[in-house]
């Protein structure tokens, strides 16, 4: 039982890592007033670019870096469409997801063809922080990127709530007209938020291909971007609450994986569908009071 719990907690942290990256990325975008439905595609792009660069260069960290840069560029593309041209956010976001998914798969085929055995790399190794300590040791044996994700949560909280940048970010998302009148460059802030957010989303994707799998597959993201869209609402657009959401989802996911291997007759899909249903229920309960950034989905036009 002890081993079971320790394994479960360790797995929870692993599953929560890409979700934390992705949701924090979406948090930047939505706090600036942009719903970025490109997240699923940007995570996919991050997984692909991370893998391809790591495979070519032999350096996993270079792969992560390249993924982040690619994600930031994708965020800027979202900015061009939804901020500069003022196109509908959900259609441009979905368009970006379709584009980046297709583009990643196209380039993957181009680079590696259709081999019988899919190309692989040696993934990141987990860090043994306290190898001798009984319970804490195995729990803390995590990938470096998991620690990065956990460290990002207080950092993002500090940026959003305690810096001038964060104040401007929130102002732009809540009331762009007033922010503009106060001298904040709405377009610049939204571009920056989308770029930072895109970089974080792509890092989440790169974690999956470079740490968890050591490969790039068609189903590498498998809807995790949409989970992030749910978690951000569940976590009320707050970095720390978002982490709890990611951990809760990670825990449920890790638990269903373990229940499957024990051969317990139980539709594990119920567990997987749970976070979506809980989010919809939460939205229904919050109803008109849901704390959406007031400027969300509204293109800003300066007349």
């Amino acid at each position, binding site marked *: 039982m002890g081993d079971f719990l320790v394994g479960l907690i360790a797995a929870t942290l692993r599953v929560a890592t890409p979700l934390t990256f992705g949701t924090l990325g979406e948090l930047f975008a939505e706090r600036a007033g942009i*719903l970025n*439905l490109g997240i699923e595609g940007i995570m996919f792009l991050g997984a692909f670019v991370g893998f391809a660069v790591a495979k070519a260069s032999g350096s996993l960290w270079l792969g992560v870096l390249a993924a982040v840069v690619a994600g930031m560029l994708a965020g800027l593309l979202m900015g061009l*469409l939804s901020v500069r*041209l*003022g*196109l*509908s956010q*959900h*259609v*441009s976001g*979905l*368009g*970006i997801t*379709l*584009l980046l*998914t*297709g*583009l990643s*798969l*196209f380039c993957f*085929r*181009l680079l590696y063809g259709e081999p019988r055995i899919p190309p692989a790399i040696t993934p990141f190794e987990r860090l043994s922080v306290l190898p001798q300590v009984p319970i804490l040791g195995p729990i803390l044996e995590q990938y470096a990127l998991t620690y990065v994700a956990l460290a990002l949560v207080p950092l993002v909280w500090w940026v959003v709530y305690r810096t001038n940048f964060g104040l401007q970010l929130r102002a732009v998302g809540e009331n762009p007209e007033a922010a503009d009148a106060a001298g904040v460059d709405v377009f610049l802030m939204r571009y920056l938020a989308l770029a930072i957010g895109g970089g974080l989303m792509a890092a989440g994707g790169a974690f999956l291909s470079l740490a968890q799998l050591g490969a790039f597959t068609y189903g590498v993201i498998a*809807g995790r971007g*949409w*989970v992030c*869209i*749910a978690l951000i*609402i569940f976590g009320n657009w707050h970095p720390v609450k978002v982490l709890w959401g990611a951990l809760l989802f990670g825990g449920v996911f890790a638990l269903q994986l373990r229940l499957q291997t024990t051969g317990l007759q139980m*539709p594990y*899909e*119920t567990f*997987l*569908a749970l976070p*979506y*249903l809980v*989010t*919809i229920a939460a*939205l*229904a309960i919050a*109803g*008109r009071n*849901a704390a*959406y950034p007031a400027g969300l*989905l509204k293109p800003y036009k300066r007349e």
Partner: protein
Amino acid sequence: MRRLRIERTPAPLWVRPLIPVLAALITFTLTAVLIVLAKANPLEAYFYFLIAPLSSRVSAIEVLVKSTPLLLTGAAVTFAFSAGYWNIGAEGQLYAGAIAAAWMGTLLEGFPQPLGVLLMLLSGFIAGVLWALPPALLKVKLAVDEVVTTLLLNSVILFIVSYLLNGPWRDPVSGWPQSPEIAASAMLPKLLPRARLHLGFVIGVLVIGVLWFVLSRTTFGLKMRATGLGMQAARFAGVKVDRTLLLSALISGGIAGLAGVSEVAGIHFHLIDAISPGYGYTGIIIAMLGGLNPLGVGVAALFIGLLSTGGQSVSRALGVPAYLGDVVQAVLLLVTLGAFILQNYRIRWLKASEAG
């Protein structure tokens, strides 16, 4: 000296049909880069992409087969978007229709085929409506944003399909994760000998026709468009906005459900988890490419059907990965959306008296 000036007034009407053409040209220029990267000649590739599929009977019919679910999801999305209800859930509603069809199809052994087909369509439509109901009610009653709820329900129904196929509906004979085959009387009849084209295509065209009729020839269509243009203004004008939104959302879901029936009863005859490679999302592309105009949506569905077939023919002939088709579709969507902005402007020569 004569000078050009860009003015913010609507472009002349004859410019509008040219915008999609311009967008297509820009798209093909952009994606030519990928074709060059794949070491193929872009012009040759576009021949296989756009013209080769139409040059043989088999592949031309295949274009229509590929277009069939797209006509339906495109119409479904257009129906909702026209009323300003952003239904991103056509994909999920399609799966709801597919589940209903797979279930109903096994019950219809020995029925006369016309009755069987009618019951299939009805059950798929109802399933789509039911799956569209919760987000629509949440929107109307509690003002919950439908973009997120419809999107999340797409993931939920995939888990239901996975549960059904790995549990109660797993094929008892083969053990594959697919539902038992539906009865012959539940299958959509073929339209042509030796080809996969089935009745679903006719239904798709009919639905596009109905869409046109409702939007442009009925008071309900007028209410829908008024609601889509501005809910406040529509409410002041006496339109029951909530009722209009609810009905548009549900009918949209029902039409998407028909796309699920069409794939199960026309092509696969089983429920499989990959029944749709994202037809619901492609429906959004189609609705936007068609400018929410039924005729435009029909043309866009056929064109995207051509692009999907063409992607495979490029891949076979020149070794360019077939995913090129997906990329072209997405780029075309984004470029077209951008290009439609052009219709708000016109370029005018300044007269000598104005210059200066």
